[in-house]
């Protein structure tokens, strides 16, 4: 395909969200003196870590042309088991292996339902989300469990130089995901799956196996996000995943409107996640009512996606 010359519309399409993000930082910095400080940026980065890592998992699935909402339940389940088993005195390493196993099992379950039985991913993953939520409730009966072991908590509270440890996890995972997706053959196959699955099959790539792997890897990323989220909260509250559910979706969709209009990509998701928490932090610093924060976030999401989808020319339906 021949490359068309770049137009202003395309620039707004691809970089509009990034400009808006930078603009938001500048505006908040001018209005509020407390916003532009190292501590505040550290805060924003640390807060967006679990959201970002979870959204990377979702982005991977979106790139492969499917969707996976099971993290809404998986995060809560992982947190409950993590806090519960630490309280019972198991060693942190053993507990980490157990929750990794839980993540892998959930990923496999998703893969079996969606790739094996060919169920629509949206519905199947919502069902898995419910099953995870049920397991969580049965495991801890909805009681909040706190983690008190300072050694375990140091995983998220440590600093390396001026940089908080979670920020390193966030950017580390971002770099790995971005590199694997854009620079390796396997990553290109994943993109190809989302673009044209029939062509992928014709070329002789094992489409089902690749897609199954995508779901398992995504579930591992969700598990890691849950690990960070639980430790950062200092314990497991009921249905922790439910609060993240919508924000992760919003971050990924914002990402779809960034850099590659209409297509999920990792840099976009990173910007999306940081953008959401920049708004939260900036508006909180201005002393605006707490319930106006989601309003601003919602409007930004709508505008960003509207700009990137207005040129599509026809209604996009969802296939169940």
């Amino acid at each position, binding site marked *: 395909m021949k490359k068309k010359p770049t137009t202003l519309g395309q620039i707004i399409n691809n970089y509009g969200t990034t400009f808006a993000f930078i603009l938001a930082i500048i505006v908040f910095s001018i209005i509020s003196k407390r916003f532009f400080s190292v501590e505040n940026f550290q805060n924003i980065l640390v807060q967006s870590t679990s959201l970002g890592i979870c959204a990377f998992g979702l982005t991977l699935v979106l790139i492969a042309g499917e969707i996976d909402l099971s993290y809404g339940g998986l995060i809560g389940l992982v947190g409950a088991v993590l806090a519960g088993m630490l309280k019972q005195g198991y060693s942190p390493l053993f507990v980490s292996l157990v929750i990794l196993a839980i993540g892998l099992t959930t990923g496999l379950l998703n893969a079996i339902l969606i790739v094996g039985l060919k169920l629509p991913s949206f519905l199947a993953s919502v069902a898995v989300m419910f099953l995870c939520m049920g397991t969580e409730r*049965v495991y801890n009966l909805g009681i909040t469990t706190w983690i008190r072991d300072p050694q375990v908590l140091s995983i998220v509270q440590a600093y390396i130089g001026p940089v908080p440890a979670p920020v390193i996890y966030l950017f580390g995972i971002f770099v790995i995901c971005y590199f694997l997706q854009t620079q390796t053959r396997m990553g290109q196959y994943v993109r190809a799956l989302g673009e044209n699955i029939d062509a992928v099959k014709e070329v002789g790539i094992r489409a089902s196996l690749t897609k199954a792997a995508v779901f398992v890897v995504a579930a591992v990323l969700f598990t890691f996000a849950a690990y960070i989220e639980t430790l950062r909260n200092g314990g497991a509250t009921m249905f922790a995943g439910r609060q993240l559910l919508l924000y992760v979706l919003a971050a990924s969709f914002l990402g779809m409107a960034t850099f590659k209009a209409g297509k999920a990509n990792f840099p976009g998701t990173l910007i999306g996640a940081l953008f959401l928490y920049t708004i939260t932090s900036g508006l909180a610093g201005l002393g605006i009512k707490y319930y106006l924060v989601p309003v601003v976030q919602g409007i930004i999401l709508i505008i960003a996606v509207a700009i990137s989808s207005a040129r599509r020319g026809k209604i996009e339906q969802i296939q169940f």
Partner: protein
Amino acid sequence: MSKSNSSVISLDLRNSGVIGTGSRKGGRAIAQYGIFVIFGGFYTLITIFRPSFFSLGNLYDILIDTSLISFVSWGEAIVITAGNLDLSVGNVAGVAAMLTCHLLTNLGFGLPISLVMGVSVGGLVGLGNGLMVSRLNMNSLIATLGTMFVLIGPLFWITNGVMVTVVPESFSYLGNGTFMNIPIPIYIMAAVFLFCYLFLEKTKLGRNIQMIGQNIEACRFSGIDVRNLALLTFIFCGLLSTFSGILLAARQSLGNVTLGDRFVLEAFIASMLGTVIFNGKNVITGTLFGAIFLVSVSNGLTLLGAGPEWMYFSQGSLLLVAILANYYSKRSRLKITGPKK
């Protein structure tokens, strides 16, 4: 997400009796009646252990709870029929209920005005959702997610997040009163059911909405106003969501900000069950059954002494049953004429 382009053609052929015999028909029948068999078995088991399940009082309880989620489920079902999804129904229900309670109790408006104001919120939000999907071509999942965020503002702004205990008796009569020994919500449910059923099955608009869901390209080529019909489904969904919210507030005589939260997933499960129960046809009746199944399963489990933690299992399993049935009924349909995927 894959498209099953052949579904319209195969439906026509099946209806005309040209094909679809023997084992292929069997596959559909299993998918279609399997759900009834599962629920028949479940009801029988519960009745054996807890005979009070089939008492008149409990049946009324089930029907009243069904009525609360039926409106929002029908709204969601109509949107799903046209191939979209509405995530904002829960917050629409919440805002409508809070506004109605606030107008009635804190500002002293009359019942009719408060109800009209509450319901019109749904119309407005539905219009917004519909315009985003039909005019700006936004994916409905993303657009309504945005609306869901935005609605959190008014939800808390109306009373600053404070719960409203409703004073007027006439309002709580809507949810708790009886007329000729039958609870009022059941009358409302029957009336709305009849309206939705006639609209979707018997009017040209309704038939066209169903066709959009089947094959939007074919509709566009045959001159159906695809965009305005999609817009209409969202307005419908918004209006119906407010019914559920306001009626729930009337039943509790109380409006609070978390009131609508349950509706999103319940409406989703009920309408998904609804689209498979009659094999993709007669969605409104199917959704009514879906809502009854959903409510009666949690009712039955509560009677059996299961704690709230088992509700999520039951809802998740119900959803799995629904999509498995949907898949098998679709596959048996595709086998007739569909190209190999």
